[in-house]
């Protein structure tokens, strides 16, 4: 009886994960650390939440939402470029014994002198085990300027879905080793919120990440070791009512 109860509680948690994590799933270690402020991100995994990343490489990530041992999220992401055009494909896969969710996407973006314009198509597929599956399609649009010490970005994410979100962000480098960003997010079915983030390069190989958002009140922290074109990152993100979420990413950029 206890076992069944535990399974249903875990399933309930899984179903609640998306709204609790600000509707748009932010699974990569980088997104977990900077609360979705992709102007600060150099992870290919964040193509899933930004159509204007304009970087190339490979990323694999593991995410444990709200420290639940019953739920596993895996992500696999790729991006290549040809002249000014970037192409990215990737997926996030959430697995629970009784529920699974799969979110493959395909992105194309054009980058020229720091200006990026991009679009992403998403297919979200979820299934309760042994029951019927559901799928839905949505798309992202974005425009960004990101060059040198400053950047700005506007994104429409998951248009045509319940998780639709519009966000505005700006970035500025306070010193050669410290970069900050701030943003405002408007969601279709939830309250608007602010978010801020910071990166501090402690060493050529080591960077620290921090962030905060209101509604709900959450903090993100991360550390990235990047000896070369590859990097390993761990991050944690708190929640006002639930256990913190953990994420690990392995990134290779080229």
């Amino acid at each position, binding site marked *: 009886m206890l076992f069944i109860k535990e399974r249903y509680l875990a399933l309930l948690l899984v179903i609640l994960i998306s709204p609790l994590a600000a509707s748009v799933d932010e699974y990569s270690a980088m997104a977990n650390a900077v609360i979705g402020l992709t102007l600060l991100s150099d992870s290919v995994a964040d193509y899933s939440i930004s159509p204007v990343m304009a970087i190339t490489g*490979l990323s*694999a990530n593991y995410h444990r939402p709200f420290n639940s041992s019953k739920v*596993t999220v*895996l992500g*696999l992401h*790729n991006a*290549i470029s*040809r002249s000014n055009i970037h*192409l990215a*494909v990737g*997926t996030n*896969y959430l*697995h629970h014994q009784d529920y*699974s969710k*799969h979110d*493959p996407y*395909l992105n194309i973006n054009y980058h020229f002198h720091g200006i990026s314009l991009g679009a992403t198509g998403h*297919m979200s*597929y979820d*299934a*309760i*085990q*042994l*029951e*019927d*599956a*559901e*799928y839905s399609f949505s798309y992202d649009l974005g425009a960004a300027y990101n060059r040198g010490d400053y950047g700005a970005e506007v994104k429409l994410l998951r248009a045509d879905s319940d998780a639709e979100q519009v966000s505005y962000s700006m970035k500025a480098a306070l010193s050669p080793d410290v970069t900050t960003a701030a943003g405002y997010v408007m969601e279709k079915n939830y309250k608007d919120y602010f978010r801020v983030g910071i990166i501090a390069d402690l060493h050529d190989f080591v960077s620290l990440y921090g962030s905060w958002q209101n509604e709900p009140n959450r903090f993100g922290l991360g550390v990235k070791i990047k000896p070369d074109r590859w990097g390993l990152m761990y991050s944690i993100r708190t929640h006002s009512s639930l256990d913190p979420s953990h994420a690990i990413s392995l990134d*290779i950029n*080229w």
Partner: protein
Amino acid sequence: MCRVVAQETAEGFPLLPELDPISLSDQSTDSFYSEPEPLSGALAVSAHYGRKDYLISHLQFGKESWLLRAALKAEKGYYPNFQLRYHDALVLGSFRPQWAHGLVSGKNPNHPSLDNPPHPASYSPLGAGLNLRYKDWGVLSYLSQQDRAVKLDGDLIATLPKSKQSYLGNVTEKLGSFGIYRELQTLGWGAQLYHQRYDRAFDDEALDSTLTLASLYAHLSGSNNTLMLEYAHGKRGNAMKAEWDIQSGEFHGKFSYSRLGKYQIPAYAAKPLLLSSQDQRSEIRADMQYRLGSHFSIRAGTTGNYRRGDLGDPQWLAHNNLGMQYRDPNAHLEMILYTVDREILIPVDSTYVDSRPTHFRVLISGKYQINPCWSTEVSARYQHQEKHMALSSGSSWAQRVVYRKKRLQIKTGFTIISSANHKLYLPSDDDTGYEIYGKSMVESNLHLSYKFRVLDVSLSYRGDVMDIDNFRCKIDLGKRF
């Protein structure tokens, strides 16, 4: 041993495994025997452990003008085959006769031939064959006799399986054929008389235990165009197939029309229609490819299959493809959209009960060479269809990182399967060429291979990360000499 992981049509579209799963198993065998020359001999042994335990081995040994080919699959029983070949003129053992479009035997539009044996667990003619050529003229003839395992209904043949399995019943099959052909530079033609006989009758009244067919083919080749026609005539009815192949500049097109009357398809004929195994149907196909510059190409294809006989069969079946490909020395990206009429898949999945509408398949695959040693590969597939009561769909995502240096190759990655209530047929390095997935899972995989001086060795592992007992291991040993 080199594996073919996806069957392709002549136009380059990967064929959906559901449309002709049996032929996929022969492709891995063909790839072993068709390695480029010089090749005097080769040996490959592949041992599988886990979900299915079996061993499969292939041998080819050549000396002067003689060539010996042998294969064995050991699973619940032992399934061997062999072939002894002198030049391409005399063949003893198992062989696969190929003649024109394959209305009577296998398909080889270039010239009649007696090809390598099939997968050891597949049936093929067993006996002796001759393919003698003198200048432009040729004679192809063969005789075969063997006992085949069958499913019986009383004393009658209910099913004649194409693969060797243990059934209670047996039937003796006798085949014979004599054909003459002439191959000139632009014109080729041939005529063949074929006979097959079983020592039991079929329970299906439309099938005769004794079948005699006469067939004619002709083809005309120009610099840009090839026209081909094959006609086969039997006691109950006939079949014909016409094909036009055009290559002009950056355009390549292939158009064909097939028509089957009350035609009993011979035991080892190629599948005459893509979308149906029934007779009394017509099929029209068009496949086109156009190159846009040096890197891009677009492809489109359509197949329509029309009923001419039994009212119980669906009247129209259709299959359409649309694809786009980018390729340069370091990158390859391909996207293909398929639509398939549901009835096509009934023979492989009886849960498809509705008659309309079509269902969709989307395939995305890509490769990128990061540097001379490292590369990455992605392959994704989404299948969608609607049943009476609910949506049925499935998807897969395979991601691999590959490291190659001199004799060493390492491949590792994940395959994510989302398939709650839908059977996914995915290409596989299994000897059957495909694998069926019916539940959601994450599969990790690792493949290590090293070419030693005396032997090529590779180890493969695939396992469900959520269920440690659900795994597959494979050891391949190969040598070419």
